[in-house]
């Protein structure tokens, strides 16, 4: 693989990760917390209506997890392509 091809392949994999993680980002916040909150509010977990919980708690926990997932995936990807120096 030439240097340029390697860079291209690395970038493609990176974009794939970003798109997947952003899809989850969108689903928990805009999906569960806003667009579908009324439907989810019919479900109750302890004292929380689920839509309300996603909007004021759950989405934020997922955000943190998403960033650390990206950190982990990219550290592995950097190693795979030898960009971890």
């Amino acid at each position: 693989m030439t240097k340029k091809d390697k860079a291209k392949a690395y970038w493609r994999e990176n974009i794939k990760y970003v798109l997947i993680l952003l899809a989850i980002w969108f689903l928990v916040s805009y999906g569960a917390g806003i667009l579908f909150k009324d439907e989810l509010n019919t479900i109750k977990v302890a004292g929380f209506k689920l839509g309300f919980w996603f909007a004021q708690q759950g989405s934020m926990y997922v955000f943190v997890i998403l960033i650390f997932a990206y950190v982990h995936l990219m550290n592995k990807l950097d190693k795979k392509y030898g960009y971890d120096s």
Partner: protein
Amino acid sequence: MILDAIMTAIGVQDWTYILVGLTFALYIGIAIWSRASSTKDFYVAGGGVSPWANGMATAADWMSAASFISMAGIISFAGYDGAVYLMGWTGGYVLLALMLAPYLRKFGKFTVPDFIGDRYYSNTARIVAVICALLVSFTYVAGQMRGVGIVFSRFLEVDINAGVIIGMFIVLFYAVLGGMKGITYTQVAQYCVLIFAFMVPAIFISFQMTGNLIPQLGFGSELTDGSGYLLDKLDGLSSELGFSEYTEGSKSTIDVFAITLALMVGTAGLPHVIVRFFTVKRVRDARKSAGIALLLIVLLYTTAPAVAVFARTNMIETVSNKPYANMPEWFKKWETTGLISFEDKNDDGNIQYVADATKNELTVDRDIMVLANPEIAKLPNWVIALVAAGGLAAALSTAAGLLLVISASVSHDLIKKVIKPSISEKGELVAARLSAVGAVVVAGYYGIHPPGFVAAVVALAFGLAAASFFPAIILGIFYKRMNKEGAIAGMVIGIVAMLLYMIKYKLGWFDDTLPDKSEWWFGISPEGFGTVAMVLNFVVSITIMKFTKAPPEGVQEIVENIRIPSGAGEASSH
């Protein structure tokens, strides 16, 4: 036991002096220890900050007086709708970590206009970016100085103006002396102070009301008095008094969507946040420290909605339909500050707190929910005093971060890059310090004489950032063909659209009166319009780019280079 006796013998006022005095001494000590000796120290703390230190500093930088003092109160009154701030001010970090921070760190310069100017090979683009950065930062910083003044005046009973001036000197001292280096390490200390000050009362109250030590779980638990789930009770109380149910909210779905997105994208486009990621050593550290920053922010942001519920329930139960004469001491105290006012409209001596404005007899300022919460819950004196130290830490750390962006915009982006490129390193450092002094003075002036529109505009700083920087940076990284014509046109049209909408629908300067909500475009409020302006920016940028020539070879190479994490040199000015 002896310690216990001493702790209770000291009054709130003295505790406040002790805690505020100790924390200020700490900040000044750190500033002296971490003086800046080069422009690199001054702009990016030498570029060798560890991910944890940077994460803590970013969190303190991010959480302003508004997050600490006002947010829980806003949520308390807005119920579900408060989620726009919770999601909006945290979700942007995902965008930052995945789409901006690593690449900007690899790019390795000092400021956001640096990136815009180099990537779009144009000093016009650089100057447009500087103007946007100054506009965003100044509107934001004035609010912080005001916050410092308010905390001083309420807890230490000094005049608001004296409070602003004391705050100015403290910030001046460590921002001018230490630059980014001084700011970073004081922010680490400030994070510790503010999170401790926020969590301690929250944990106390959660335990009091629900028997659960974790506030995040507490507000979904059953009450200790056996009256069922706390949230059900609050929903019931709210509808009884004529408010909408706490967990339902009253904004339209499209507006909640637009505001949340504008705040998220705005967060990712704020220069004082972005610049923090220039201070770490490697690209991988930039990603990791964004994660740490968000973790530390979320600790407070998930506690705030719990505090909101505790405070709202406590308040309604204390005041609703109770005789005015029996109100506790805190009620009287906050009445003298004008934050609570009672008008006995039906002359029955009881307090009617209801949604119907013609019958409602109680006006409560939202800031009380955090400031008076410990008193309402009858917590010990030292906990009440802690809130003052926390509020000051939050306001000072954010103000300092913003001042640095302003000074770097002037000394680096304007003087070094445009007006006088031949300036020496020493000369630039002097210029940076002088512009920091100038910025503090201007910020202090606006803190003392707040123009009526500042409060309205602070919330819109996010819309401005979303409408200008975010698309230009994203396209600069992810779209190699993006050229200067497209980017400049996009930024100018985006920010002008945002300003016009804001002036028409938020400030009402175009008409004799403020236009009604029904006239909003697509039902989107000025706070949410940043989303529309951002989309407009993207569309304009891409359209113009299609009809103009591709950027030069060298620039396309820069883009290829920033996409690869290895070989990130230290941040440099050349």
